[in-house]
């Protein structure tokens, strides 16, 4: 009976609307009102610093290797004290899919996600972030780890002085 079915189908939507008229709305009035994002929300990437205030990134290319859309590029260079760092570091956020794989690959905890998702621009070139745009002056999620204190190649501390190392051997010593 189509007529009966139509009449029956007529009322429920009204009922649903009526019922929700008295609920608290879930819509956030963005941008007047900022949404509350979960702590581990994955949005714009930053380059953090280690507890000593030095750049964490050592330009190891692991993040760019892990990136599925190839939006990270960089060039490594050597500082006077032997520290490896990025002479330039570029992320093309027009391409980035915010998967966070780079942060998982990063051995120094340098690259980290933030919850800043407000990066739409009219000009795609403005979405190409250089190192200056990416580098922040805090440690991000982790304020303890310092790669060069673990690496043991004499950059943050003289060779053989990190807690996990013994002093350099004397190679001309023949004692057993």
């Amino acid at each position, binding site marked *: 009976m189509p007529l009966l079915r139509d009449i029956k189908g007529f009322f429920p939507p009204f009922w649903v609307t009526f019922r929700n008229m008295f609920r608290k709305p879930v819509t956030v009035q963005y941008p007047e009102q900022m949404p509350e994002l979960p702590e581990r929300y994955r949005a714009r990437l930053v380059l953090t610093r280690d507890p000593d205030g030095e750049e964490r990134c*050592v*330009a*190891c*290319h*692991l993040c*760019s*290797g892990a990136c599925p859309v190839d939006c990270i590029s960089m*060039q*490594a*260079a*050597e500082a006077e004290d032997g520290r*490896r760092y990025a*002479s*330039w*570091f*570029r992320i093309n956020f027009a391409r980035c899919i915010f998967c966070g794989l780079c942060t998982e690959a990063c*051995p*120094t905890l340098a690259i980290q996600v933030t919850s800043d998702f407000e990066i739409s621009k009219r000009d795609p*070139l403005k979405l*190409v972030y*250089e*190192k200056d745009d990416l580098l922040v002056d805090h440690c991000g999620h982790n304020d303890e780890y310092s*790669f060069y204190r*673990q*690496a*043991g*190649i004499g950059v943050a501390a003289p*060779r*053989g002085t990190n807690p*996990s*190392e*013994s*002093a*350099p*051997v*004397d*190679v*001309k*010593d*023949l*004692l*057993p």
Partner: protein
Amino acid sequence: MPTLTIDNQQVTVPDGTTVLEAAEQLGIVIPHFCYHKALGAVGACRMCAVTVVEGTFKGLKMSCLVKAEEGMVVTTDDQQSVEFRARVSEWLMLNHPHDCPVCDEGGECQLQEMTIASGHGLRRYTGKKRTYNNQQLGPFIAQEMNRCIQCYRCVRTYKDYCGGKDFGVMGSRNRVFFGRFKDGTLESDFSGNIVDACPTGVFTDKTYRFKSRYWDLQEAPSICPHCSLGCSTVPGGRYGELQRVRSSVNEKVNGFFICDRGRFGSSYVNHPERPRQATRGSWKLTVDEALQQLDVKARELINQHGPESVLLLGSNRASLETNWLLQRWAEEIGCRAPLLSAHLPRHQAAQVAAFDLADRLCSLEKVRQSDLVVAIGADPLAEAPMLGVALRQAVRSGGKVKVFDPRPVELPCDFEKQTVSPTELLDLLDGTSVESKQLVDLLRGAERPVLVAGGLMLGAGGMLRLKKIAAAASNDQRNCLVHPLLGGANSFGAALLSLPEQDDLLTRLESERIKMLVCVETDPLLEAPDNERFAKALSLLEELVVLDYLPTPLSVHANLFIPTTAPVESEGTFINNEGRQQLFAPVIKPRLPISVTGEGNHPPREFIDVAPGSDPIPSWQLFQQLLGEATDLPTLREKMKTAVPRLIDFETLQPGGVSCRVAHVDERCIYTDEIPAAPEESLQLVVTPARYGSDLLSRYSAKLQPRFTEACVQLHPQDAAARGLQDGAKVVLDTVEGPFNLTLKCNDKMAIGCALVENGPKFQQLVPGGKLSFCKVHAGMSHG
């Protein structure tokens, strides 16, 4: 020929094969560190453990040390072996620093691979790590000793294989250290090989430090363009910059290693002044416009002044394809056949190798296996460095090496040296003198004799004499083989394409009414003898056209300049000194490196379709355009093969393969060597290539600069004393090509009656490989 079973698969291998090698034939890769095909096995790392189930010695064994036996049964994937190897990985990691992110080996590190393959991920050992202090080893090699796993590969490569003396192993127990006794530059001319040999990041290429990761590099099999041996290499580049060269394997040629000139001499590709724009004077042109102008002008001149008015000049730097198409274009426009070398004596020597000696030529592999190598007029480390290493292998397996040369030849092995002057060299080869007969007898007494013929020193005449000696020393059972050394990477190819008769560039420039000269990847100002006369001849030209990829002095004089690509930026063919027809593949595209366009900072922020500086196209493509037949490379090569039947069918070759030697022919060269009479009180002039920077490519390589030597003239102390000259004095070297002010160096290891100068970046006026000539040395004017 034992047959054995490995992991339930049977394989039959030659006697003496190890289990590790036998498994390799089955495609089973047993993890290993210290075993290396060229270096053999020492059993130092314990990584290659397998279980021998059936065999003389049963149980867990090191597969690199156990020889295959008949009926042997071996398992590589049983629990015992797998666990053992996992523990080995773990203990090799005990002291390893936590620094892969800043290590240049990362991504191509055998230790990383084996550690991951054996499943070792978490560190259980909580003790302290052993550390070392590093050494400064000079401009080429960086050391990070904490990464060492004591496999001894470096010292076996540097000392045992390549004959270096200033590197070794020191210390005892877990303090063994690999390096020099004191800080200092590694002296060997083959030092770079320890970078390839070390399975970890202890030794890395300092010139490539922090430039790229392996997985970002563009790499392709290529041929080293720095000397006539044509070693197999794999250059790598990124962001438009050629960043490094590593050795590749060609068992017939270089084996597994290359020399430092080949490894560190590649930065000519990134030369800051490299011309990348077609120009007429100060006008910028597109390549098409430039070609158009070249074509129109050449045809116009030929119409007006006849076929003699245009001269085309090919080179031994240009590929076989380019030289061949240059000849085709000459036919097309109706000028005389191109010259394929600016240096006639060198070219003629190459022709003797390409025609007369062709049925006796032998590879470097044969040199390594020889029991008697006699090098005549050859200084391997200067002319063909890897030959020095090959000679060492001959000596290591019981062979003898004898050298006849006027220069103070050094070799990385024991050898017998007879210091003779260039004229004495020719006498030695005349077949009638006592020495000559002794030489033949000596060669007759050997089982696998090889004569190394230094083409630069002997010239065509000497090479022809040497051919007779080789014939006299051969018998029905075996041939006396010849390994010639030629001027450049494609000298053989250029010689093979040209007629056995060729005239001299200068004579033609001076005697004929030449209006236009087209130089393809050559600079006669640097490569032809007597460059002053050449410079004068140039001024008579109406039009000088240069096609090149180096900022040579000649390109400055060019009326019309067309940029071409370096060998690593294009495909092509070189024929090496023994006639091996080798292909190379393109590695990077020609363009301005990002380090230049970005001025060291990040790349420019702009959208462009075409990378800046990407105008240059391969010279063979330029000539195809001129000929109006833009075919692909296989079609072109097919045509070449039809036209030049001696060539190997290109389809059977591939870049990076062992390749084949071109066929020999019955054509013969007819060159004679007149020995000019020596003017009174004169010395024989010997011009030798410097070890670094004599070939133009390494001269334009910034990385090699630390190895460039100062210009000097060398005399035997006796000759110096006779002239009242002292070591270090300022002297004048009077040659037919003019006087030169140089510093005197006395050297008692060189021939008496000779004056020796090195052609290199600091002294370019005299080029090696000329005809016999004489000179005088006297005290220079003292100024003030």
